[in-house]
């Protein structure tokens, strides 16, 4: 009998903590459950590699800096000129499908699902909370939905991903998850913080 995967923020017992501090919570924090993810490395200029990705995954890798493409349960976030985060949104592991599609083309696939924690920050004051910690222009077109950016949250590296329905996904290294959660909860105190259920 195998044990279930242990979530990085399990020790906070967030499911039981679904409560609000402050009168009306201005910001909601949610710890997203594990989703398979890989870092994909390959050459933006290699047409055969790009075509193989498209053929296998059904959509194009984003080539413009900080752009995000999605299709049928998979999202590719641009991290660098030769680097993408390919994130499952359905729990379906992409590693095998990708590896099969890219066979014969120079690439590297590195498992990353266990290496990160995604924290969803939403609510009317989400941006106000993030702007205390992240130096990017959160209001500008560069961080509209469909974009992403590597940045910092206080002293932690993050990948910031504005969501189409409002709010943000903040990807942090697993080891930073506890600290970043506390950082966000502290920054949101002024507006009231609600703890969202899984999702």
């Amino acid at each position, binding site marked *: 009998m195998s*044990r279930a*995967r242990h979530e990085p923020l399990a020790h906070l017992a967030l499911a039981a903590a679904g409560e609000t501090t*402050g009168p009306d919570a201005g910001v909601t924090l949610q710890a997203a459950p594990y989703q398979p993810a890989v870092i994909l*490395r390959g050459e933006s200029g290699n047409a055969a590699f790009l075509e193989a990705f498209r053929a296998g995954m059904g959509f194009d890798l984003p080539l413009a800096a900080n752009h995000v493409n999605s299709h049928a349960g998979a999202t590719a976030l641009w991290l660098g000129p030769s680097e993408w985060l390919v994130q499952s949104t359905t729990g379906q592991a992409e590693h095998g499908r990708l590896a099969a599609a890219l066979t014969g083309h120079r690439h590297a696939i*590195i*498992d990353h699902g266990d290496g990160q924690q995604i924290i969803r920050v939403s609510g009317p004051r989400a941006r106000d909370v993030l702007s205390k910690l992240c130096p990017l222009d959160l209001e500008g077109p560069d961080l509209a939905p469909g974009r992403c950016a590597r940045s910092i949250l206080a*002293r932690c590296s993050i990948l910031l991903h504005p969501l189409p329905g409002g709010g943000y996904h903040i990807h942090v290294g697993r080891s930073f998850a506890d*600290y970043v959660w506390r950082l966000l909860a502290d*920054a949101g105190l002024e507006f009231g913080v609600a703890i969202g259920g899984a999702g």
Partner: protein
Amino acid sequence: MRQAINRLAEGGRIDRTERLSFRFDDEIMYGHPGDTLASALLANGVRLVGRSFKYHRPRGLMAAGGEESNGLVRLRQGGRAEPNVRATEIVLFDGLVAESQNRWPSLRFDLGALNDRLSPLFPAGFYYKTFMWPANLWPSYEAVIRRMAGLGKAAKSGDPDRYEKKYAHCDVLVVGAGPAGLAAALWAGRTGARVILADEGTELGGALLGNGQQIDGRPGTAWVAGIEAELAKAANVRLLPRTTVGGYYDHNALTLLERVADHLSKPDQGQPRQRLWQVRAKQVVLATGALERPMVLANNDRPGVMGAGAVQTYINRYGVRPGRRAVLFTNNDSAYRVALDLAQAGVEVPAIVDLRAQAPLGWRAELDRFGIEVMADRAVLGVAGRNAVTGVQIGKLNAAGNGVVPGLARRIECDLLCLSGGWTPSLHLLSQSGARLRWDGTPGCFLPGEAHQAVRVVGAANGDFMLQDCLTLGAGAGKSAANDAGHQHRGRGPRKPVAAVEADPTPPRPIWSIPGPGRDGRKSGGKAFVDFQSDVTAADLRLAAREGYHSIEHVKRYTTVGMGTDQGRTSNINALGIVADALDVAIPQVGHTTFRPPFSPVTFGALAGGQTGPLLDPARRTPMHGWHQANGAVFEPVGQWHRPYYYPKAGEDMAAAVNRETLAARTSLGLMDATTLGKIDIRGPDAAEFLNRIYINGWKSLAVGGCRYGLMLGEDGMVFDDGVTARLAEDHFHMTTTTGNAAHVHDWLENWLQTEWPDLAVYCTSCTEQWAVAALCGPNARRLMASLCPGFDLSAEAFPHMTWQTVAIPGVLEGLEARIFRIGFTGELSFEINVPAGHGLALWEALMAAGEKYGITPFGTEAMHVLRAEVGFIIVGQETDGTTTPDDLGMGRMVSSKKDFLGKRSLSRSDTMRQDRPQLVGLLTDDPGHRVPEGAQLIAGNNPAPPQRGLGHVTSSYHSPNLDRTFALALLQGGRGRHGETIHIAYDGRAVPAQVTAPRFLDPGEAAK
């Protein structure tokens, strides 16, 4: 109790229906919402608010805004106490407590005032002249001087409040919300541009709040309210009152200090007291206004001498009359309006004293109505009174303005002297931005020169002192700034505001220092202050010039003019004029001092921001962190990781716990959380070639399935990092790095790949976070593994030391395999088990459960250090210090001669090939119970007295339960040739004898392989 004797019955922007109680020193007083501490004190008839810095002279309020240099108080109590806060900027709240500063035992009776009598002993440069000899006595002098001369006292306990930082981006940042700034913000905002409007004050409006001017046929304050209402509604405009823009840096990056809750007795829950904004603006509009200069004349610091504009603000904005009988002394037109406002408020105004031969004509009728005499071509020569003004002495100056025409002296009794020495545009921020300032002799001030960044200056800051110019040019600047940021008006812009017509001004007559009332004007008649906060007089500046200080920067440092917390806002130009006169040169030749951020003092709390206490630094946790906590681990920070240091059992101290853990790992079974090791996935057809260039040893010969220890050097040939790297496939490696150096190593690899070797087809990707690692070691390690991986051949033949395999661990990993590396850091039989991080805790718990029968013992970093040192394994950063080569560590034979690699050439320098370099050795003290401190120096003889030639130092020192004695590692000059010799370890005045040995104390033998 005091009565608010100076509060006007009506007028002002205060709410008389509500009373706010506050305490200043020992007196309880009342004010109203809308008051500052300063206006409330004046309303209550308080004239004496502080003692000056050096002479401890009695001082009163002079200004109504941020340029106040006398009214510095200690605000609040306990941990919230804050020294040197300007009373003019403290918004009154109920229960406010403030104390005067710089006096003992009391404000009224201050012993330090003796300094004023002794002032001939304290000339400019007094410290440099007096306390420089003998030099070794300076610490004693300093203690006394600090007590005497220091400004306020800081809080002794911790600040209970929150502070935070905030980032913002905008198209147009408008600094200052007076008429020009409001017009700019309105016109910029109407284009849809993102606008931030910041102002120091609690209310928008700037000078319009206090000067009674009219716009569009109604009071200026009504116009302000209309604009504010529109701006507040606009989603693209952010209004920041109580916010001082203090720093202007490159690329239009500005810092703003928002006083979020300073106007409350304490902040709301979660609310910060102050917020430090870092704003990136495409365009900046500076509408920072102008500050009124005082006149430099004898005893111009007596309580009751105030700025004319400040007096006007107190009357019109705060409903306070600062005196009963006022004389105004001016060199420009602006005091005339003030005289009328005073008279209308019921203050007796016997005279306006005007330096100019021709007083402006436009005011005649109104002045006559109040019986105000205009004394043209006259000057106030001196002020009478000590704790308060009692009168002024008036005379006529000669044409040059440097002497008094005899026989025309006159004295007028008064309790208020209003000074208007002309207006200084506030160009601190512009100057910080890199722009030059140019002197304009007509208004007698510096004006903006060529801009260096995307910035515009409008309003009084640009020398546009007429209200209509402020409105028109402000609107134009707002519009063009928005245009330049890519935003255009759709349709027509807002209606242009029209100010009430003002008469053309009569040019001012700047005289930087009014001669004293003594005969022939030479006798001073009292100290004439230039810088009130630093207690610098005109005489000090002249003395400095006579002593040879010709550069204004030197004069500043020598006399301390402009060096107070007010940054010389009211004193710089007067000082410049006096120095120019003394040197007999024009002002532009003297130039001005450099303006540096911040414009206003910033609290340490705001600079520190929100990440304090437990949030100070990221605390990285491994997946097994919770288990370590639950099992009593004491944690040690390693980089940002929090690693178990040791796991004390009940009654154990650190030494006992570490001994137990160390012993268990050698005799049975130990388990360590090694998740924190840096891990880098290296993949591509050139991966082996890449590693060959990075590491000193060869990698092409490493078979798939094999592991190899590698050393990396910097280009200087010094050891930079080490670790074991495994070959996963022909083109695929798994590198490990030291815990604290993981990010540096990754940067180092990327740097070489991207800048020097772009031809190599290799990807380096960090996977530190992906894997949890449990390091199992000890004689029973194989037995334990066998129970976890039934059927898997774990024999030394099938799974030898320095290889790795993927292994299923049923019950722990379903559908996944662990990567198990037959490597370790203790010399014992070892397995490093890597599993995806989400399974790390399950693996750990499974190992602990299965290991129970072997007495499996989790061990922390300290036991790990002892274990590795026993077998002579180094730690980069402990046995190395950035000047250590592989050969110094006894690893010279690892250096490949068949290939080139980073740092290789440096290893053939004469210095790196010296025979007497510090080399790694072991040390055994003669006394086996004696543990020497790490870092202790090695010396030849047994006399520890300095001076000594150091022979090296102790790098690691432990007690080993396995050796039953202490031992140490050290870097010793020519150490490899000195095994068997005795050297001495010097520390704390002792010289401890020790025998030099090989740096390996224990051999676990072949069974451990």
